[in-house]
């Protein structure tokens, strides 16, 4: 039994919704959703009679994003206490770059409510497909852009980097305003500690609609400010590696195709 489903809607709403998410929505008495896709409400209304959009009632310009997150969590748990089961449906993957589901989990844990989390297609999935990347080949490092600056996290330049939320850089306040070039100065300066000035990076905004292609901006790292007006809140930065790290353990390399070695590390 589940009191609250926390479900990911994927990036393109209807075409990304999984069967298990659809089933959760069908079995809910209310769906509270956070997704600005144009067909989200129309779609959910075909599955559940009571549908509530949380976006409009949660965010206000220049307001603290955390207030919006707390509001969403309280509304979801309030609904579950009143008429469970309910679904909290979120754009993308519910636990990728999304704080409200963790607040729901926290409240539910304190109140003995049963929660099931269902994954959705996230921006990481779309970035990998749109840029034709396999994160297993050269590895991957990823950080939230503002957190990268706050903690002055070191980067490994030979490992592909995915830096989230470059649009809302350097603020915890909600805003739909266009960025100035200066917004990216500190960010570029930090990346310049690890990458050449003319290193080509990619800003990507994954498509939110089936007929819309992804927005992909390629520019030299030091030119990022020139794209300030284009880089909105939905953009992520992909930083390709500078070269690749050569093999260093030749002993292990020699063993990779050795049957004897395989037998020495496995049971018969």
């Amino acid at each position: 039994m589940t009191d609250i489903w926390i479900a990911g809607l994927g990036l393109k709403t209807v075409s990304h919704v999984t069967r298990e998410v659809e089933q959760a929505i069908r079995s809910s008495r209310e769906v509270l959703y956070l997704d600005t896709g144009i067909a989200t409400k129309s779609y959910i209304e075909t599955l559940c009679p009571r549908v509530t959009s949380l976006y409009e009632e949660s965010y206000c310009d220049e307001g603290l994003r955390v207030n919006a997150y707390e509001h969403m969590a309280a509304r979801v748990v309030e609904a579950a206490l009143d008429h469970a089961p309910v679904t909290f449906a979120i754009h993308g993957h519910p636990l990728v770059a999304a704080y409200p589901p963790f607040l729901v989990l926290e409240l539910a844990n304190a109140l003995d409510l049963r929660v099931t989390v269902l994954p959705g297609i996230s921006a990481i999935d779309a970035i990998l497909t749109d840029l034709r990347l396999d994160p297993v080949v050269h590895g991957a490092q990823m950080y939230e852009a503002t957190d990268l600056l706050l903690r002055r996290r070191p980067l490994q330049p030979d490992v592909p980097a995915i830096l989230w939320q470059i649009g809302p850089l350097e603020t915890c306040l909600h805003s739909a305003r266009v960025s100035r070039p200066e917004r990216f100065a500190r960010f570029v300066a930090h990346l310049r500690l690890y990458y050449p000035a003319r290193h080509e990076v990619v800003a990507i905004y994954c498509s939110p609609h089936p007929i819309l292609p992804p927005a992909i901006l390629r520019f030299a790292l030091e030119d990022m400010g020139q794209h300030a007006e284009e880089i909105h809140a939905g953009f992520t930065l992909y930083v390709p590696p500078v070269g690749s790290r050569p093999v260093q353990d030749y002993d292990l390399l020699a063993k990779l195709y050795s049957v004897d070695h395989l037998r020495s590390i496995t049971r018969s």
Partner: protein
Amino acid sequence: MTSMPRSKPGIDQLLIAVALDADVRRRLVDFPEEAFQDFDLTEEEKDLLRRPDQRLLPLLGAVIAHQRASPAPEPRAASAAPQPHAVVEAPTLPDFTLVLTLVPCAHYENGRVHKLSYAVWVNPLPADADPESLPPLPGAVFPGQPLTPLHAVIQVSPLPMEDAAGQPLIGLSAAFRKSSNIAAPPPHESAGRPTGSPFGSDLRSAEVQAAVAAVRGTSTSPATGERYNRLIDLLHVLRGREPQ
């Protein structure tokens, strides 16, 4: 300016239909002119739909804005030229490892640490050597009582490469092998434990118990907003107030 009444649905309805219905989407892609017949579209809109690109985003935004036309409720509260240290003549330079040793030195006053000073130096580290086993710097005079030394180990790898013209180029890659003496558990939210509190809150504390009881004791009517307010209070007790 007034707009003419439309006899057919406009581009907003087409965009919604395309998102909802795979058949409509396929028809728009394969036979756009045919799909256009069911909708009232300008030539500019048709051109955009034939070759969709980022110009579509404002249209999507307009549709969403139209959908939100009804006013939303307000959010609730809630000196000499320096010389190299070493010159290595070799066709390929092997990796070399450096250890930076930092020794905190305590100054005592009335039996208590009054202030700390630090002594720092860098040595090459032999292969497979433990930095902890290195002897103290010969002749070093510490500016206080030395405490346990701390070590950062840096491996430097010269990488033979070629530049764009195919000329030999030596790159350099450095990696930290040990950069901290801190041993601590991971943050609760990164521990990978799906049961229990995601933030490690103490549910047994009297404050949390009282806040939980307050939620349970409120009316079930969402109209009063009382339970909502108690839930926000409980969140603040569980998480502490976020920085404002």
